[in-house]
């Protein structure tokens, strides 16, 4: 497989996944906050095609064995259910699949409140994915600006910016976040939470990419073709844009792909400090956080499912970044 094919494959997968998340309301059978208090920590529902007599049914069905006599609920498609908004704008209430009440279909089991994990995973992706992406972009952008300037100009500018960056790394963030939380009003709207998450994560994370980029810029500007271009009278801006910064793409991409999963996890800490996505809104961070408890780990294997799904997702991210870098290298050569 060529790098280009690999890239296309990864991008298609990512796009498909983003599509699922974007239309979470349609693909999820339930709302993210819907509790079924009779079924906390319910195991994933088995979807059957064959009945007890061994007959095959084209329409899958589930069996509710919890109640006194087992009841069969056929899985129905394009059913009307909890209202939701497509991409947060267009109201709708058709869901891809569902079962008749009081039956419940939990593809990935239910959580401590009897909420459908599958639905929460899809809805959780909306905030986590977007926040992670934007925050990573923010970090890397600040990193490229600071690192680029520091590396290219050197001297006291370099000293100032890099020491500033170190100061940032050394700050006791936990206490700073306590202070941020204390300064904020108790009520924070969904959008404010989102902006807060993005800005906190983005601002905390820029120092490391900035250092790496500075290193690459420092070596790039010594290269013969850069020195030659400068000899021909190229301006600083032209040199940076045309010759130096393109050398940093590889570092940038790897940084991005490393930062996104990190930020999804950072959300767990932020939520703990009251700065993250609050209940009942779902996020991948809070779904993963429940795994920190011994009883969840030892008793309810399906609580791992969100984590297991995130591993291939992040691997696809890495694969895309890897392919991009390889392609870039080939082009550069």
């Amino acid at each position: 497989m060529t790098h280009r094919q690999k890239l296309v494959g990864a991008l298609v997968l990512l796009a498909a996944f983003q599509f699922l998340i974007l239309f979470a309301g349609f693909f999820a059978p339930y709302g993210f906050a819907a509790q079924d208090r009779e079924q906390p920590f319910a195991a994933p529902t088995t979807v059957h095609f064959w009945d007890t007599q061994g007959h095959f049914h084209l329409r899958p069905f589930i069996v509710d064995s919890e109640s006194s006599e087992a009841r069969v609920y056929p899985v129905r498609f394009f059913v009307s259910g909890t209202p939701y908004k497509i991409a947060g704008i267009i109201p709708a209430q058709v869901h891809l699949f569902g079962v008749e009440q009081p039956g419940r279909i939990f593809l990935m089991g239910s959580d401590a409140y009897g909420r459908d994990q599958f639905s929460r995973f899809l809805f959780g992706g909306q905030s986590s994915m977007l926040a992670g992406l934007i925050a990573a972009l923010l970090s890397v952008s600040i990193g490229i600006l600071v690192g680029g300037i520091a590396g290219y100009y050197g001297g006291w500018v370099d000293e100032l910016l890099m020491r500033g960056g170190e100061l940032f790394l050394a700050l006791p963030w936990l206490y700073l976040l306590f202070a941020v939380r204390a300064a904020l009003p108790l009520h924070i709207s969904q959008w404010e939470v989102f902006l807060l998450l993005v800005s906190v994560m983005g601002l905390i994370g820029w120092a490391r990419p900035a250092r790496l980029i500075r290193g690459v810029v420092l070596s790039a500007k010594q290269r013969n073709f850069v020195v030659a271009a400068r000899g021909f009278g190229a301006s600083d801006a032209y040199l940076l844009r045309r010759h130096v910064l393109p050398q940093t793409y590889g570092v940038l991409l790897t940084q991005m792909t490393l930062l996104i999963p990190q930020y999804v996890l950072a959300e767990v800490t932020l939520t703990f400090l009251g700065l993250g996505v609050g209940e009942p809104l779902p996020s991948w961070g809070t779904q993963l956080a429940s795994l920190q408890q011994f009883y969840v780990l030892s008793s309810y294997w399906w609580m791992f499912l969100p984590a297991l799904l995130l591993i291939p997702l992040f691997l696809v991210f890495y694969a895309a970044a890897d392919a991009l870098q390889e392609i870039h290298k080939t082009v550069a050569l």
Partner: protein
Amino acid sequence: MGRTHIWAKCAALGLAVACLGAPTKARAGQASDDRMVLEGVPGHAGGRLVVALRSEPKTLNPVLAVDEPSREVIRCLSADLIHINRASLKTEPALAKSWNVSRDGRQYTLQLRRGLRFSDGAPFDADDVVFSFQVYLDEKIDSTQRDLLVVGGKPITVVKVDQYTVRFEMAQPYAAAGRLFDGVAILPRHLLEASYKGGGFSEAWNLSMAANQFAGLGPFRLKEYVPGQQVTLERNPYYWKADRAGNPLPYLGEVMFLFVPSEDAQVIRFQAGDTDALSRFSSENFAVLQKQQGTKGYHLDDLGPGLEYNFLFFNLNDLGAKNLPEIAKKQSWFQDLRFRQAVSAAIDRDGIVRLVYGGRATAIWDQVTPGNKLWVDDKIAHPKRSVERARELLQSAGYSWKNGALVDPRGKAVEFSILTSASNAQRTKIATIIQDDLSQLGITVQVVPLDFHAMVDRLQSSYNYEAAVMGLVSGDADPTSEMNVWLSNGETHLWHPNQAKPATPWESEMDGLMEKQLVTLDYAKRKQLYDRVQEIVAEELPVICLVSPNILVGAANRVGNFRPAILVPYALWNIDQLYVQ
């Protein structure tokens, strides 16, 4: 509760006890001693009990200890004059073998046991008691027990009558005076007087000192402290209790406290057999441990509801001086009794019991839990959850619904936030369930989990909150331990602490009842008064009581005489009687 306790059996057994295995040095002193004899199955001497502590003890000084791990260790090293028996919840003689109360209920005269020795062999007498109370009552030392020893605004006075008699005097009669002495560890004057007089008491008995610098009257004495790992205690050969067969107590040769920092890690160590007893763990972990109960050599006990009550409350503070206009506006809802009643009616307490505690808890409607059998008021109604009734109440108070959202009589949408402590998973879960329940009334609720200290700061000083889910654990079954919660000038009067004068007629009534029960000596009369306090709480709903979790404990099968109780310390309160097979 009788007013005079005489413990006579011990003297008769004194001689028999002294011949059994105690070191020679002790024997001389104990020939005429007043040993206390405990009922229970006689056990085997020797062996070691291992338990886990959540963190390292910060000090072994009973006067200065505030954290639970320190107190847990200190309980094994020290003894008090009168003790609350954790099984009966009643007082019993300890270092004082008997006591008399004067007619007016203000004077307590205690007869001390004779011939007792500290764990270093030094004799114990009234001078140690007088010295101990002098230290506890010293304002400069700032002991947490001091507040309890101030009755009617004045500190208790202590007078030595003779070598084995002390008299305590209080400014006013005090119903539960015997219970005051529980947990007030008697200090060895010969070891601590110098540092107290020299001004170095705040440093005395920290863990960096050598083991022979410590001495107490408890069943064990310090053997070794390994920072970051464990504290080991060894048997105190001078201990003053014996079993009914005359064997000296304690049975255990050693007690080892391991430092295991999280509940989950403690559960895993217990499951693996590394520790012998476990308390303070969640119902979820109880369920995990239960699966292997038969095969792993331990057993679990669910003791039913303890003394902890969890509740929701609203900010009813006078916000005049604080600049919090948004919250002040919302207080018009919170101050309306019908609003609070509607919220209470809409909350699914049974759902909380099931989802948060896996069924190992009890729904409650006032502050006294069914675990507190002496004081619970059976007449308090337990209305079922009813969203319809909640809607009716809101309607009668002038609220209406617009597109499904509740709006107040002025047309403002009803929306508020509930604070919880982020480190308490159960309470955050309770708040999340309330959020969902109230959404059925059209109320939008935000759950705001905050770091514990940030939360307490908002509740106690800035008053910058709207509602909160909290829990309190009574230190004792007696209502006197709850004075600071129900008195309107109390610091823990959470919804409106430190009032100069009662803000509402019912708070004024509650003040009167609480103060009266404090000086009433007759249990039946006190019960009547405290029942009325419970009724007021259930009617006026200053706190909407929700649930009381069960006390869950576990112990290895090899531990004998294990009799856990609902009062702190749940598992090891009778450590002097525990033995290992």
